Structures are given as C-alpha cells and as structure tokens.
C-alpha cells in the first residue's frame, strides 16, 4: 500500500482543525493527535464540524477517549454541532507521526520509530526473513546506539521494550507499523 498522504483539511476549517489538532493523545500525552497522525481530516460545513480519526491499532483502547476529547474541545471552542467519525482506510502507520512528534517522543525518553521503515521486520511482503531484525536505535537518554530489544511488545500496543547497554537504562520504543 502506498504511503498515505499527509492529513488533509480544507483551508476554511483552519480554526476547527487547530482546535482538534491540539488534543493530546491519552497514552502519549506529550504528543497531540495531529503529531501522532491520528487526526485524519477536519471539515467545517455551515457551523457543523466533522472530525475523522484513524485509530492506531485495531484494539487500541484509547479511541473512545480520543473521540471524546476531540468532541469536548471543539464544543468548548464554540462549535455547537460536532461529529467525530472513524476513518479506517488508509490504515494508520508510524510514518504518519510528524517530525515534531518524533522530536517530542525522543525528548520524553521514548525512542521514535524510523520513518519509511514500515514492514522491515521479519515479514515483508510475504517474504520471510529468519534472521534477527536489526534496527539502529539511539538510546533516548544518552544517545548511544549500543541498545538491544528486550521485548517486541511493551506497555501499549504501539511500543516495544528496549535497553541501553551503555547507560543501562530501559526505554520504550514506538515500533514501526
């Protein structure tokens, strides 16, 4: 599947977009929904605002929370009629996390995903690579690249658990999807 285009929104919806875009992610509150690439589109039509969200993982338990926050913020900003919708196609990808989002993640001690490396794991386009997956991952604490994966699955669906062998700190890493 082609890399999804950047989030689209019409110019006239600038105000509503700005409001929805500023909503923090419930699980990664240092990021906004726009930083995360979850906010797909905001449309304003004769006073009615419709915001589309693209959930990260199928089982992401934060979707209802995100939708509630977007709804509440838009209403508080003076939009009387708000609809929040899910958009499943194209699916969310870590490539949708913005540059700003990657920087904020690193500042918060979470290693950001590598852009453009989706599908670089053992399984890519039906071809199975049996060797260990190699990512050069910088420790978000000390910057060392002498890091190792402890577990592909971490505290939330989108994170893996890593450890730095230089400074000995464990850290979370957003895994590419």
């Amino acid at each position: 599947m082609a890399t999804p285009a950047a989030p689209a929104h019409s110019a006239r919806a600038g105000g509503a977009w700005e409001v929805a875009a500023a909503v923090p992610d419930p699980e990664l509150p240092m990021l906004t929904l726009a930083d995360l690439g979850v906010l797909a589109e905001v449309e304003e039509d004769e006073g009615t605002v419709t915001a589309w969200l693209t959930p990260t993982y199928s089982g992401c338990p934060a979707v209802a929370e995100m939708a509630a926050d977007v709804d509440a913020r838009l209403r508080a900003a003076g939009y009387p009629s708000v609809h929040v919708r899910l958009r499943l196609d194209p699916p969310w990808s870590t490539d949708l996390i913005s540059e700003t989002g990657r920087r904020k993640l690193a500042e918060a001690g979470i290693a950001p995903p590598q852009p453009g490396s989706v599908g670089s794991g053992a399984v890519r386009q039906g071809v199975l690579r049996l060797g260990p997956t190699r990512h050069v991952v910088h420790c978000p604490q000390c910057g060392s690249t002498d890091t190792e994966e402890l577990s592909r699955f971490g505290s939330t669906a989108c994170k893996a658990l890593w450890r730095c062998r230089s400074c000995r700190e464990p850290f979370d890493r957003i895994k590419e999807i």
Partner: protein
Amino acid sequence: MTHATTDPTSDDDHVYLTLSEASPGPEGEARWAYGTGFADPLLGVDTALPDGVDGADLGAYCLMLGDDALILAQRLIEWCTRAPELEEEVALANLGLDLLGQARQLLTRAGQVDGSGRSEDEFAYWREEHDFRNVRLVETPNGDFAHCIARLLLFSTARHALYELLGGHPDQVLAAVAARGVKELAYHREYATAWTLRLGDGTEHSARRMQAALEALWPLLDELFTAHPVELRLGVDPAQLREPFLRALGEVIAEAGLTVPEAAPLAYVGGRAGRDGVHTEALGPLLAELQVVARAHPGANW
C-alpha cells in the same frame, strides 16, 4: 444528550459523549474510559453494502473471522499470570488485544449487514456455542507454551495471508479491517516464528515439545483452508492460500530443525465443523468464562 443533530444515523449517541459531558472543559482532568469502551468500533464509517455482495453471506463471513479472533484472544489472555516470563505475558496480551480489536470490528460489521442489527456485545455474550463460527484450531485448550507458539504460528501465518487477500475485497469495511490487521498479524507471525526457531533449535527437550505441539495441532489446520460455501459466494477461496502457506511454514519448520507433521485432518462431524457451529468440547467452558459476567448482569454498563 442536549445537542441537536440531524444526522439520521444518530451514531453520536455514544457512551463516550456522556463521558465528555461529565468532564467539562478542554482542561478537564484526564480520565480513563476503562470498561466503558463499548463505543461503536466502526463509528461513522460508511456502512453501505456494495453492489453484488449478499448481506447475509457477508455477515456470516464476518462472524467466522470475528469469532476466530475473539476466541483466540480469549485463549491468549488465559496466559496472563501463567507465561514463563513477564515479557512473554505482555506480548501474548498484546497479541490478544489486536485480535480483540479485529473481532470487535468484524462482529459489528456482521450486525450491520446481516439485517439483525445486533451489536458486538450481543454476538459475543448472547450466542450459544453452536452459533459460534470459529475454526476448531482457536478453541482447543492452551496446553504448554510450545502449543501456544505452534497455534500462533499456524494461525498468524494463515490469517496474515488471508488478510492480504481480503485487502482487495469489494466490501470496504472488511477490506479496511484486513488492511489494518495484516500489519498486526505480521508482528504476530514474527513473534511465533522467533519462538519456534528458539524452541526448535534450543535443547533436545524444547525441540521435542515444539515438535509435539506441531503434531498435536496439525490436524486442525485443514479447516482454515477448506472453503465454506459462504466464502465462495463472496469470491474468497482460502484453498488457494494452502500451498504458499505450506511453503512458508515449511521454511520455518526446517530452519528450526523440526519436521513437518503428516497427521491427517481432524474429521468433520456429518460434514460439518467449526464454520457450521460444530465444535470440540473445549468451546463450552471457554464461552462460560467469557459470558458469565454479561449474563449475570444483563444490560449492565460499567
């Protein structure tokens, strides 16, 4: 609800909006919606049925795939507090969460298109055993960790291939669920593959148990690649996935130093199996645990 809406679908009347009203202002205290996550997992998604697709068939197929995911998710969460290491416990719970998310979307889609209007909860909590359409592979008891890995390897390799196929299905919702799911299943497959190699290429003891697990589950594999009439009417033939599946799996098994089992498929009962609601004796107790709270408190919200 006080806000006016002219939207005929009225799908904004959701529990999360009640939550948002209970916490006024954008700077309201962050709160978690645990246990209230029954908001429509297809909220606002275009629900139209494409031309040429029969709603009853599509509903039945979404139940098949959704039940596979739901029942395997339930088996995976049984590993909580029982896995060999904390990291594996977290991993298995993560895999289960992905599958549960897929199940919620598929069951919701089933209720939209089969004409019944049933919700995901009605499907999950209020159907009887013979109404579940999952393959028997996902319902058999967990067994040891090697069994867990063997089942994940078989299921995730097969489902990954099927989701790739379904990404092009005319039903946009099914296609979107599959397109999302294929990326998740790639991680599941990778996890199961890594553990198969580690156990198969580990000690004599671990290799023996991994081989035994593959032998035990092999007879249940056939059902995944036997086309059901419903699937064929929807233009999906899982039989075409069998050979590529066996090639990919054979590669992993060989690399792990194990042997591809030759066990014959588990017999159908009067020509019927999981897809027709004929299950093993393991499903009943699983459903009892899955459904007991919802049935003890009908209509409750928490």
